[in-house]
């Protein structure tokens, strides 16, 4: 086994956050379940509580839990990855690694595996909480597995970006800040860009419809107004959005084929690019230490 993995895991589990973070994470997810159920049954639809379908609550709860889980883990992923190489520079231990027989690839893999394994631990520990949706119905084990695997894939990409930042910068604070900036770009900025493009596209559609109405032509058919689903140039920003990819994982096979595959490909490219640059940076980091 790569000696980096054993060392990293040993060090991580000795830190206070090794047990504190999983605890807080599960408390947060539990709070989401309680709040959602209370909100759904008591506040949102109190008149309908008796006739409310369990599967409706189950489906909605699953969605909320998956997004909550992804949000928390997106916040936590840089904590484990972005500081993992910079801490070696700060502690002046990187020279010891670089002058040993460990290759930059082995160092990267040890760091990546250890940080990802901690995220896997969190994901696995949340499975019982996610399984609460089975009590309501509407969601099967396959959907939970697909959502978990997609979340893991997204987190692996974010960890890889974090590791690149960690290899590039000298200080953990800079690497972590830039990784969070990258997360903001792929979540908030991509959603905002999509919203802007979407409104522009809808305005074009409306103008086209109004023109046709003025000419007395039919305005209700798809041929008249253009396609109902937004074109690629509108949807493209969402391909880097983790929430979009996770949502598609439990959508229809057609949705997955149309948008899921390209989105997964974008994440794969991001992963591979950050991996390649991180290893290259590690090769040069003897100059930095």
């Amino acid at each position, binding site marked *: 086994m790569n*000696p980096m993995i054993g060392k990293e895991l040993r060090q991580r589990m000795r830190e206070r956050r090794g047990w504190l973070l999983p605890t807080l994470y599960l408390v947060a997810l539990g709070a989401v379940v309680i709040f959602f159920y209370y909100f759904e049954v008591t506040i949102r639809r109190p008149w309908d509580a008796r006739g409310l379908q369990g599967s409706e609550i189950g489906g909605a709860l699953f969605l909320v839990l998956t997004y909550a889980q992804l949000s928390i883990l997106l916040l936590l992923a840089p904590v484990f990855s972005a500081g993992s190489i910079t801490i070696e520079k700060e502690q002046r*231990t990187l020279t*010891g690694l670089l002058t040993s*027989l*460990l290759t930059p690839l082995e160092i990267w893999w040890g760091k990546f595996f250890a940080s990802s394994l901690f995220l896997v631990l969190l994901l696995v520990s949340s499975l019982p909480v996610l399984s609460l949706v089975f009590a309501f119905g509407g969601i099967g084990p396959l959907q939970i597995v697909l959502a978990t695997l997609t979340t893991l894939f997204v987190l692996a990409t974010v960890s890889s970006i974090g590791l690149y930042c960690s290899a590039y910068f000298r200080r953990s604070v800079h690497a972590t800040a830039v990784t969070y900036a990258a997360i903001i770009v792929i979540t908030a900025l991509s959603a905002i860009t999509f919203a802007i493009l979407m409104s522009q596209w809808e305005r074009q559609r409306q103008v086209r419809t109004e023109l046709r109405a003025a000419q007395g032509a039919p305005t209700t058919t798809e041929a008249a107004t253009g396609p109902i689903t937004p074109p690629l140039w509108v949807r493209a920003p969402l391909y880097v959005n983790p929430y979009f990819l996770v949502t598609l994982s439990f959508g229809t096979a057609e949705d997955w084929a149309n948008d899921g595959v390209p989105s997964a490909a974008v994440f794969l490219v991001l992963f591979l690019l950050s991996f390649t640059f991180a290893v290259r940076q590690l090769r040069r980091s*003897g100059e930095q230490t």
Partner: protein
Amino acid sequence: MIGIHEIRKHYDGTAALDGFSLEVKPGELLGLVGPNGAGKTTLIRILATLTRPDAGQATIGGHDVTHEPAAVRAMTGYMPDVPGVYQDLTLEEFLIFFAEAFHLRGAKKRAAVEHALSWSGLGERRKAYVEQLSLGLKQRLVLARTLLHEPKVLLLDEPATGLDPLARIELREQLRSLNGEGVTILVSSHILSDLEDICSRVAFIATGKNVFGEGGTLELKGAEKRTAVSCEIEVLGNVEGVPAALASFGDARLVESKLNVFRVEVGGGPQRAADMLRYLVTNGVTVLRFDPRGPDLEDHYRSLFGSKTP
């Protein structure tokens, strides 16, 4: 064992190494001396495969440090000026990790770790966390770590920095014993007395160049080779005439003067020093104290780099 030929390295247009050359023979313990910023650390980092030279060639055991870094690392132990340690590992875990990092497995790994623990005298504290060790013991642990894979060459950058006198003495003994086992050692240090005590030769580096020219060094062992004698002369009364009297004596060179004390270097050995004393007295200089001795490393350093202490 270590060959350095016309090595050059620039940082932002400034030359850290400017055509430095040196040869270190197998089994030799060679000191590297120079003022701050002279290029010592850069040179050692190039040899340790951490930094790539801009030009020139450096080899260890016949392996090029730039093109065969893995082969160089396999036979080299490197200890940086500020050795990093994993504070949250035990001593045993720390050594096991590095033994595995040098591809030692099974019985070989266990034997290497046990040897490192006993060699460093840290065997009884194997279960202690590294953070509990003093700086001296951490240095010792890092030195033990560099020896895990039985390197044939040791590159030590300021290994005595921050150590108390006792730890320095222990370090000197450890280096001497390693050298006795045939390990080639290149050590940079500002503590000249330490280098003088353990090294057979010393290379001087300044502004990235070998002060003694290509591959040149100063032989330290073997007093018979020493020809220059450094004398401290304390005079009474008129001191103005002393420099002139020294200048008129052929082989004397005034190195330093403080009030009525003069430090003078005389070529030609002890006999010429005695001649100089006689000459001064004959020329009316009242000598209160005359302290001749062979020049030590500090004198050489002083004469090469001025009166600045290292």
